[in-house]
């Protein structure tokens, strides 16, 4: 739980996960509803909303968690269509592709990357203060939804 909350605060947000409904299976975390909690048995593979996993002490959020966080107040960088596509392909974000910034603009903070439809595409780390008049890469891609395709390729 602490690792999840720590990550959420890194993107300038807060989340209130019910402890009784948050379950861990090996290194993966899931959020259940009351109905699933009543039915689930110990040996499940996955359940409810997948929140993310820990690996070597680091927490890797799921896209479901990012979407949940994006619904509330958080650091968000809204990007144009071309930048959104490049981001999904694993590329970093260039300053000229940013339409709007909500929340922190500070170097070192993390922010959700949002497309023009308001959908969360992943998150990245702000590389330099976004107030500054600079060009080039300003947000490093940490995780994006293109990962679903990369996972598929990895499996085959």
């Amino acid at each position, binding site marked *: 739980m602490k690792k999840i909350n720590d990550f959420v605060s890194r993107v300038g947000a807060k989340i209130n996960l019910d402890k009784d409904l948050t379950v861990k299976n090996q290194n993966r975390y899931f959020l259940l*509803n009351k*109905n*699933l909690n009543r*039915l*689930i*048995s110990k*040996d*499940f*593979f*996955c*359940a*409810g*909303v*997948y929140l993310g996993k820990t690996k070597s002490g680091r927490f890797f959020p*799921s*896209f*479901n968690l990012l*979407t949940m966080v994006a619904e509330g107040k958080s650091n968000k960088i809204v990007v144009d269509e071309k930048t*959104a*596509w490049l981001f*999904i392909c694993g590329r970093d974000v260039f300053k000229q592709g940013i339409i709007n910034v909500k929340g922190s603009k500070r170097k070192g903070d993390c922010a959700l990357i949002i*497309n023009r439809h308001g*959908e969360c*595409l992943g998150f990245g780390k702000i590389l330099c203060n976004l107030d500054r008049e600079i060009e080039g890469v300003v947000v490093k891609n940490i995780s994006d*939804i*293109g990962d*679903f*395709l990369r*996972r*598929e390729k990895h*499996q085959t």
Partner: protein
Amino acid sequence: MSVREFFVSRYEELGWKYEDVELKQAVRMNLMNARKADVTKRLESLGIELEKIPFLECGYWIRKSEFSVGATSEYLLGLYSIQEAAAQIPATLFTRLKDKIVLDACAAPGGKTVQLANLMQNTGAIIAVDVKKRRLIALSNQLERCRVRNAIVYHMDARQASQLKMKFDRILLDVPCSGNFVTDKDWFNKRTIKDVEKNSKLQRQILAEAAKVLKNDGEMVYATCSLEPEEDELNIDWAVKNLNLQVEKISCYGEKASTNIFGRQLDNSIENCRRIWPRRTQGFFVCKLKKSACMQ
């Protein structure tokens, strides 16, 4: 007689003349994540030409696309799934899915599990099981991509479903089967009647276990993408006679199944099953079974 001639002559005996079929790719809109009109508009703006599938509520054929429809941001955001047209039929045959406890007995890779979650509006619970652990990873990725919230996935053989110690309101049996030549161009070189018989035996074991864990008045949908009657009509005839299940009337794309298979007379209710010969879709077979309280 070659294997191909053997199977084709069987299809002719069942009333269908063999024809080559070019399978059209199909998608299904995930209504829990977006409105149909919004998604179609977005896909059309990308240059993807869609054609509404007349017998499906949320299905569209891809008429033209310059790139893979499995690599758009809309796909990655779970706004739609890639699912063959006939394969979209089984989940739609259940009545009143909201808040129900549903078993998806051979769930991977998860296309129908996501469809069930849509039809249930993420309420109730789907217990999705599959015997192949490797395929569970694909299933869990689908559930994450499509933002399914009401599923619990177990690594389990459907033939051991009673170990879950649960009774289900609805059961989807999209059973492992021999497949058909439309989705596998090498099908006639790979399959023998022995494979068909082996699959038929496995399917009966799954049917028998599913009948045990189905609630009274519960509904079970059985589907295969096999054209072989041993896996279709003959299995359902066996289920009706041995498992206290009855075949419900359904209204969907496809022909009434035959009650006379290779000279063998089946229960009259078998005509309520639907046989889908390859033409606009792949080959398919589907039916809905009900367990009546008075049959206990």
